[in-house]
C-alpha cells in the first residue's frame, strides 16, 4: 500500500452498501459478472451480480471458470473484456446528417452517457490501461465525453493468473493511481473483509456512508502479504530494460515468419487488449438518401483492410501484421505516446486461439538482439 489516504476496513457484505451508494448518486455501476462462461464487465445492480466464489484458470490459449471454496468476491484474474469496451465502445456513432434540404446539416453525436459510469474492481494493470487510453485519446471528444465523471473503485489484485505479468510492466498488482476508492480483499476462515482507502473527495464522501472501522496494523500486514503472494502467482515475466530498442532493431528478424506460421491473424489479441484503440470509419445512409451517419468501430491491425491504401494492403503477409502489433505495443507506442502500450494483463496470451505468448515472442527477439 503506497498511499497516504485514509484507510478503513469493512465487512465484505458492505460492498452492497457501496454499490447502492454509487447508484444513489446516479451512477451505472459496471463490474465483473459471470456471463457466457467467462467473467465479463457489465452493469451490475448489487453484490449478488459479482462472481462470488468463482475463479478462473488461464494458460496460453485457455480460459476456464472454476469454483473457489473461500467465497472471495475478486478471486479471479482478468476476463476477456477490459474497461476499454465502456470507454471506447466497439461501435460509436460520430455524427448524423440531414440531407433532405439544399444544404447538408451535420450534427455531432458527441454525448456523455445518460448516467455516469462507476467502474468496480479495476486492477492495477487496467488502471494503467485507462491512463494510457486517456493519453492516446486525449483529443477524442467522444472518448472524453464518456470518460469524464467516471468513478473508479480499484481492487488491489489478490489473484494473478498464469498469463499475468503486471509486476514486470510496473503496473500492478497494487492499485497505484487513477481511482477514487481502492479495496483490498481480506478473505479469512472467520472473517471476510475489505480494506478500503480513499484517494479523492468523491471516495471520501462514499467512504463516509459505509459501515467501517479503523484499519489495524494487522490488516495492513495482511494486505501487504496478499500483494506479495499475488506477485509470486504470476506465470509470466517480461524484461523491459532495452526492450523498446531491441524490438525496433528486430524489424527484419526471421522470427516474425516463425510466429506467422502459428498466427491465424484473427485479431483476438487486439480485441481483448485493454489499450488497443485502432478504429475504422463507416458511412451509412437510409434508402431515401435523406439521412446519413458516420460510425466508428474497432479495427484490428491483423486484417488486410487495416493497411489498405493506394490500391493494396501495405501489410500483406501475416508476419508483417504480427510485427506491427507487437512492435507497436512494446516499442513504437513509446515513441508515439511516451509509455509502453502493454500493461501486462495477459489477456492476449489467454485469448489467442493458438496460444501465442507476447512475452515468449519478445524474449526470442531479445535473445536475437543480445546473443
Amino acid at each position, binding site marked *: 500500500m503506497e498511499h497516504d489516504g485514509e484507510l478503513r476496513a469493512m465487512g465484505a457484505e458492505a460492498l452492497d452498501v457501496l454499490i447502492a451508494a454509487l447508484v444513489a448518486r446516479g451512477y451505472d455501476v459496471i463490474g465483473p459478472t459471470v456471463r457466457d462462461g467467462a467473467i465479463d464487465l457489465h452493469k451490475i445492480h448489487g453484490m449478488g451480480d459479482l462472481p462470488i466464489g468463482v475463479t478462473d484458470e488461464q494458460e496460453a490459449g485457455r480460459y476456464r471458470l472454476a469454483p473457489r471454496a473461500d467465497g472471495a468476491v475478486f478471486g479471479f484474474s482478468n476476463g476477456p473484456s477490459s474497461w476499454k469496451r465502456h470507454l471506447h465502445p466497439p461501435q460509436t456513432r460520430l455524427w448524423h446528417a440531414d440531407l433532405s434540404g439544399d444544404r447538408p446539416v*451535420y450534427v455531432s453525436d458527441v454525448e456523455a452517457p445518460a448516467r455516469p459510469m462507476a467502474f468496480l474492481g479495476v486492477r492495477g494493470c487496467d488502471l494503467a490501461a485507462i491512463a494510457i487510453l486517456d493519453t492516446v485519446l486525449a483529443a477524442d471528444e467522444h472518448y472524453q465525453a464518456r470518460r469524464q465523471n467516471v468513478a473508479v473503485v480499484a481492487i488491489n489484485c489478490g489473484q494473478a493468473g498464469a498469463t499475468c505479468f503486471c509486476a514486470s510492466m510496473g503496473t500492478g498488482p497494487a492499485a497505484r493511481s487513477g481511482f477514487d476508492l481502492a479495496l483490498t480483499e481480506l478473505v479469512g476462515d472467520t472473517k471476510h473483509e475489505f480494506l478500503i482507502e480513499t484517494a479523492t473527495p468523491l471516495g471520501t464522501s462514499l467512504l463516509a456512508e459505509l459501515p467501517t472501522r479503523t484499519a489495524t496494523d494487522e490488516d495492513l500486514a495482511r494486505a501487504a502479504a496478499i500483494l506479495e503472494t499475488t506477485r509470486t502467482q504470476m506465470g509470466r515475466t517480461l524484461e523491459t530494460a532495452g526492450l523498446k530498442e531491441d524490438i525496433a532493431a528486430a524489424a527484419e528478424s526471421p522470427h516474425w515468419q516463425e510466429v506467422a506460421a502459428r498466427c491465424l491473424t484473427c485479431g483476438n489479441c487486439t480485441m481483448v487488449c485493454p489499450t488497443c484503440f485502432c478504429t475504422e470509419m463507416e458511412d451509412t445512409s437510409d434508402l431515401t438518401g435523406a439521412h446519413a*451517419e458516420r460510425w466508428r468501430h474497432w479495427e484490428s491491425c491483423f486484417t488486410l483492410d487495416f493497411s489498405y491504401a493506394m*490500391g493494396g494492403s501495405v501489410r500483406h503477409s501475416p508476419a508483417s501484421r504480427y510485427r506491427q502489433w507487437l512492435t507497436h505495443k512494446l516499442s513504437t507506442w513509446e515513441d*508515439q505516446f511516451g509509455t509502453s502500450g502493454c500493461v501486462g494483463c495477459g489477456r492476449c496470451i489467454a485469448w489467442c486461439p493458438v496460444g501465442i505468448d507476447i512475452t515468449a515472442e519478445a524474449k526470442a527477439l531479445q535473445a536475437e538482439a543480445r546473443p
Partner: protein
Amino acid sequence: MDTRGHAPASLLPRPMRVARVVTEMAGTVTIELEAGAFAFAPGQFVMVSSPGVGEVPISISSDPDDGTPLALTIRAVGATTAVIAAVSEGSWLGIRGPYGTAWPDIPEGDLLLMAGGLGLAPLRGAFLRALRAQERIGRVILLYGTREPGMILFDRELLGWMRQTRAEIHVTVDQAHPGWTGNVGLITTLLERERLDASNTTAFLCGPEVMMRLSARQLAALGVSPSRIHLSLERHMACATAQCGRCQLGPLILCRDGPVVRHSDVGRALGIAEL
C-alpha cells in the same frame, strides 16, 4: 509553417459547396470549393466525404496565397473517390481539416521538385510559392514523370510555366505514343541529367512510394543531405486526428507527423518491406 498539433479534434465535417469541376483527364478532376476562410499550407491535406458514401484523405492542390478557391485534385480509384470525382457544380461535399505537416518554407538555395503522376497536385502550391520567391532563391527545378502523355496533370499550366517562367521544367513518360517528342523513361533518368549543386539543393518529392524511395536514394547518392529531402507519404487514414492508428509507419503517425517528412527520418522505415 508548422501546423502540427493545431488540427481541430472534431470529426464533424463542414459542408462546402462545389463551385467548379475541372476535368484534368479521364477519371481525374479538380474540384474547387466555396470554402470561405480556410487557412492551410501547401502539402497539407483534407478529409473529403460524400455523406453516406465514405471519406478519403485528399491533398490540397491550390495555392493558399493567390486568392484562388480551395482546390482538390481527385482520381476515381475506389468506391468513395468514384462518387466524389463525379460531383457536379452546386452539390455539397463534407470537408475536415486541414491536417498534417506542410512543405517547408521555400529555402534560399536551389529547389528541386520531383512529382510522379497525381503527386504534382500537392506540390503545385509549393511550386507557385517558389516562383514568387525566385528573385531571392537559386534554381527552381521541376521534374515530372507520368505514365503516358495523356496523363500529364495540369498540362496546360505546365506549358505556361515552361514558356513564361525561369523554372527549369522537364517531363518524362513511361510509355510514349506517336507524336510524343519528349523524354521517355523513369523520373530518375531526368535526375541523372541534372547537374545539381548537391550541397545547395533542397528537394520536395511526391508520387508513388517506389518513385520517391528510388529518387531519394539517388539524391542522397548525389550528395543531397537526407535532412533536406522531403517526401509526402501516404497510408490509410481514417480519422486524420492521430486517433485511429491506421497511418502508422514505424514510430510515425503520418496524419500528424506527415504527410511531409524528412528522408532522414523515414529512410530506414521505407526500406523495410510491409512496414
